[in-house]
């Protein structure tokens, strides 16, 4: 029998390909460093940001692409991940948890919020679901802004008074960073020798690993019992219910797992920036992620990876740096070219929807041509 767990077609060429990709991934940051010196454009930090967005988009792709649930407020989970990390590591809270522990807790907390936010939307379909998720996407940053000073009373008794949980719109800073003192001790290095700070090359590798964890999970899930159930719900929720798939559990699993990817990415992002503000998780972030998923190809994990890198880098390097550099020199000195960002994405979306509604890299196309039937009648097969 054919191996159903999809081995690469040829071991050698398969391995060779992976080795080449690995080499590319490893030398990329050093090459980018050189390029940065040459061109004066920020590259590594933009690629880091792009890879964070890829991890986020993978989570959204589970919800939207695999399970078919249109979520317009997905940035809420990004915020929850980042702020959980903030609460756990912001010095004023006196927890200062280790980065390596905190990021998993953030993923878990985001997953729990995925279920909490997902639960009231379970009976909604299509447009209604989109509107409710949109609202949640607005509520979470608003909540973060208002929890900078909150008082909780219960039946006249003050339980918590003027507590500063999120530091309101000033944001949380500084935040915890990965700590390698044990390695410093182990190798007898100077204290602080492995202090990563904002070193973009370190963060590049940290984010590559994070994205790989997310990518691995997404690939495995896509081709699994749960992944099939998601796709069945997407194709026909009622029929799936009749075939023994519980739509409620299946959708909650999509919300939870999608959110956990986002929680993990949010935590790493928060640590890299060292500072987070409610403004980082605005509605536009949800829309940007949705654009990545839709332009790349809903339900296509490799598509979202490639498309996400291209779109987010295009956004961060070309739209944010190269274009202003070209135009603001002499042509349009006063004009804020970056305000055209959404025009670009809008046009891109329209063009794709007209010419390639499945997205740039749709899921592996399944055999659609008809081979000559092997057995003509229902009886035939059994008797032959």
């Amino acid at each position, binding site marked *: 029998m054919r191996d159903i767990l999809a081995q690469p077609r040829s071991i050698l060429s398969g391995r060779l390909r992976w080795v080449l990709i690995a080499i590319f991934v490893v030398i990329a940051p050093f090459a980018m460093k050189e390029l940065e010196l040459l061109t004066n454009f920020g590259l590594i930090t933009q690629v880091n940001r792009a890879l964070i967005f890829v991890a986020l988009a993978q989570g959204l792709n589970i919800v939207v692409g695999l399970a078919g649930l249109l979520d317009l407020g997905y940035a809420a989970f990004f915020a929850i991940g980042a702020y959980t990390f903030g609460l756990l590591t912001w010095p004023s809270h006196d927890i200062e948890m280790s980065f390596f522990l905190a990021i998993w807790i953030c993923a878990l907390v985001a997953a729990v919020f995925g279920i909490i936010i997902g639960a009231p939307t379970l009976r909604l379909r299509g447009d209604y679901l989109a509107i409710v998720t949109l609202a949640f996407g607005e509520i979470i940053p608003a909540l973060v802004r208002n929890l900078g000073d909150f008082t909780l009373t219960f039946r006249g008794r003050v339980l918590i008074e003027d507590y500063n949980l999120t530091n309101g719109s000033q944001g949380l800073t500084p935040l915890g960073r990965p700590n390698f003192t044990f390695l410093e001790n182990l190798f007898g290095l100077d204290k602080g020798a492995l202090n990563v700070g904002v070193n973009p090359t370190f963060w590049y590798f940290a984010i590559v690993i994070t994205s790989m964890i997310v990518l691995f999970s997404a690939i*495995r899930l896509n081709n699994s019992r749960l992944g099939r*159930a998601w*796709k069945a719900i997407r194709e026909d929720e009622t029929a799936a219910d009749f*075939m023994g798939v519980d739509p409620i559990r299946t959708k909650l699993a999509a919300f939870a*797992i999608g959110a956990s990817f986002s929680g993990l990415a949010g935590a790493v992002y928060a640590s890299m920036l060292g500072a987070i503000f409610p403004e980082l998780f605005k509605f536009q972030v949800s829309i940007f992620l949705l654009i990545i998923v839709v332009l790349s190809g809903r339900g296509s994990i490799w598509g979202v990876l490639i498309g996400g890198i291209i779109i987010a880098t295009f956004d961060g390097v070309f739209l944010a740096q190269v274009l202003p550099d070209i135009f603001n020199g002499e042509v349009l000195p006063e004009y804020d070219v970056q305000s055209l960002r959404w025009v670009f994405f809008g046009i891109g979306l329209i063009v794709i929807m007209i010419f390639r509604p499945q997205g740039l890299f749709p899921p592996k196309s*399944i055999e659609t041509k008809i081979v000559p*039937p092997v057995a003509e*009648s229902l*009886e035939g097969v059994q008797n032959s």
Partner: protein
Amino acid sequence: MSVILEAKGVSKAFGRLVAVDTLDYTIEDNSINSIIGPNGAGKTTFFNVVTGYYKPTTGKVVFNQRNISGSRPNQLTRIGIARTFQTIRLFNNLTARENVLIGMHHRLKSGVFGDIFRPPAVRREEAKAHEEAGQLLDYVGLKGYEEHAAKSLPYGHQRRLEIARALATQPQLLLLDEPTAGMNPNETQDMILFIRKLRDERNLSILLIEHDMKVVMTISDKVTVLDYGKKISEGQPAEVQKDERVIEAYLGRRALEMLKK
């Protein structure tokens, strides 16, 4: 023979329209039962009540001594009720094999972490499920179509795939809503033999909605006629065929009078 399903005084109303009206109905183990009746008689609605899509407005449905009124469809699938649809409802963008695998969903054990890390037990379970799905496709005559998108299959094959998917749930009671609709006489003949085979080889009880009288009269152990949600006749095919109320329901009173002349 024992009774596997019993509907007691089941009604389902949509506002003022009573689609199924205080219906008593029993299904014996290992039997083929047909429900016939004019369009809009309430046949599909009765299916939807039995499979948990609608909660009966009054009355109750008992399956293997267990009151199932109010259970969700997926819960009933787990305890052995499966169905096909009057208008085909496959998972169009999934392959034939994946469609069948969905039918096995409730029998597979892997959870989220099993799905991600794929320990040997999960690998074995998946491999076995894929193989079993292939066998089921073979059983319904779809060998060679395993990796084809459901939407790309010809109509008759889609009907078979729906049956394979339903069989994958390992039902005790299989409900088929007009399985021969849109089929040519040859395909219909195949379907008759196939339904018999299902009962005999898979130890199933079958509940069938069918408009093709030839099919109904050939394979049914029991035929029930519904009209305006009410049972107007029930019995062995030959008895029902002669029943004046049935002729009247189908052809109208005047036709009956003309026939009598």
